[in-house]
């Protein structure tokens, strides 16, 4: 139930992001969601795309440092307390969140939270036991 994220190393300078988005546009790859973690000098761009293999290939061909990272996507109703419900079961198991980002599905009813946990297997286990919807890669990429 893990999904794949593309992580790209980028210097923090004008034109860096533009370069990535152009490469993806030219390869006809759609970005489902993204987040950017940055310091003053560099950042890591994290992308969920509709075609992981093609995105990685085309970015590598263009000289980027790219890796695939496994993350977990959890679907919750887009309403107050949605994220909190997840966090309370995760915290109870003493699982740490390395990072997370989110988007709202097209229907507008559900939000999808992308998590990187320090212990992904334990996280999936506890989330499923508590009846959360952990999305598969196919489902997520095709939203």
């Amino acid at each position, binding site marked *: 139930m893990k999904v794949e*994220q593309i*992580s*790209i*190393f*980028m*210097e923090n300078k004008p034109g860096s992001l533009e370069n990535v988005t152009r490469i993806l546009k030219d390869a006809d790859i759609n970005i489902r969601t993204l987040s950017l*973690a*940055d*310091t003053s*000098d*560099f*950042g*890591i761009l*994290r992308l969920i795309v509709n075609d992981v293999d093609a995105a990685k290939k085309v970015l590598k061909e263009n*000289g*980027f*440092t*790219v*890796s695939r*990272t496994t993350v977990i996507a959890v679907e919750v109703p887009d309403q107050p307390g949605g994220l909190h419900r997840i966090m309370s079961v995760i915290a109870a198991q003493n699982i740490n969140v*390395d*990072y997370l980002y989110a988007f709202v599905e097209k229907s507008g009813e559900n939000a999808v939270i992308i998590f*990187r946990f320090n212990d992904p297997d334990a996280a999936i286990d506890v989330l499923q036991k508590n009846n959360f919807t952990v999305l598969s890669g196919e489902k997520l990429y095709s939203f």
Partner: protein
Amino acid sequence: MIYNEDFETLPREVLETLQLKRLQQVLQKAYHTVGFYKKSFDAAGLRPDDIKNLSDMGRIPVTTKKDLVDNYPFGLFAVPMSNIVRLHASSGTKDHAAVVGYTKRDIETWSELMTRCFVAAGLTKNDVIHNAFGYGLFTGGLGVHYGAERLGASVIPISGGNTKRQLMILQDFGPTTLCSTPSYALNLAEHGRAAGVDMRSLKLRVGIFGGEPWSDTMREQLEETFDIKALNIYGLTEVMGPGMSIECIEGRNGMHVFEDHFIVEIIHPETGEVLPPGEQGELVFTTLTKEAFPLIRYRTRDLSRFIMEPCRCGRSHIRIDRITGRSDNAFSIRGVTVYPSQIEAVLKGIKELGPRYQLIVDRVGTMDTLEIQVEVNEKILSDSGEVKVLQNIEKLIAKDMKDELGISVKTKLVEPNSLQHLEGKVERVIDRRNIWPSEQ
């Protein structure tokens, strides 16, 4: 003023006769006591008694920093350890450090030469010397210290660092002379200004600056800032340390090399041939009187030229011009010589980096800075895609560099293939300090 008038003003022919006699002695000694020299002379088909004139110097094989490192730690010592009273070393770990030893007499010689420097700078026993050169394995601190004591001056062994305290002592102890790297002196002045100290009203009247290359523009700046006369001193740990040469206060143009103790040559950095007087090239030193660590034709990699005109101070010893660069990629920063190979060795040990890197040397305010830009590779993202992993690598580089070089550096991770290429090669060192703006 001249400390040892007999030797410092010897007529040229007498000086050269003395040099030849001492050279012949040191060659015999080195050949018969240090395996390295026997091997290198034999390989060149040369015997010590083949050298009949100073003009034969060019036939003697040169010694390089690598030879010193290869013989780490004591391989080039010419006396047993029981006769050694002091050890010093150049910066860097095993793969880059040169270790030097001194007999009791070597320390006396060194002290005398350093005293000559102080007297050339116009100092007497009435002076108070603030010595901000680092004490320790680096020769700067102790070298200056012994000369100051021999002169009978009062020496403040403050060493480097702790700028606040240095400012306090500069005000309260009233030193008349400041010994430090020129950039540290400017740094002191900057801190002083910030703290409301009027640097011009301190009792300082002379600054003796060395350990890194500097310019006449900096001289003006230092003289203006402190209201002092600023003098250039040059020496290398490998050859002896500070005290090998200094500008006299009368001339303030080029550094007299104490030629009764050293032979200095200038060679072409690529062909190795001895250059005609006045031409720019690499300084090569031979020690004439050192017992523990005689050094024959040591290639310093420092570029300079001879100033041929006689000096108004009356010394007959030749002058060398300011160091204007290096014939290798090494550079000097905060008194420490840094070799790109040292940095490369550290970077190679970290699998997420490389292969390309670039070193940016700059001057921010009055402090020299070193930024290491290094390209990352795939492995840097292999695991979680977390930023802190990358930040930890930056910290690791900074720590390893501090251990290796002894100075703090800034590291910057950059994208693969992003470093400037020059004819297919990355330019290793970019020095933005612009030390010699008006020259060449």
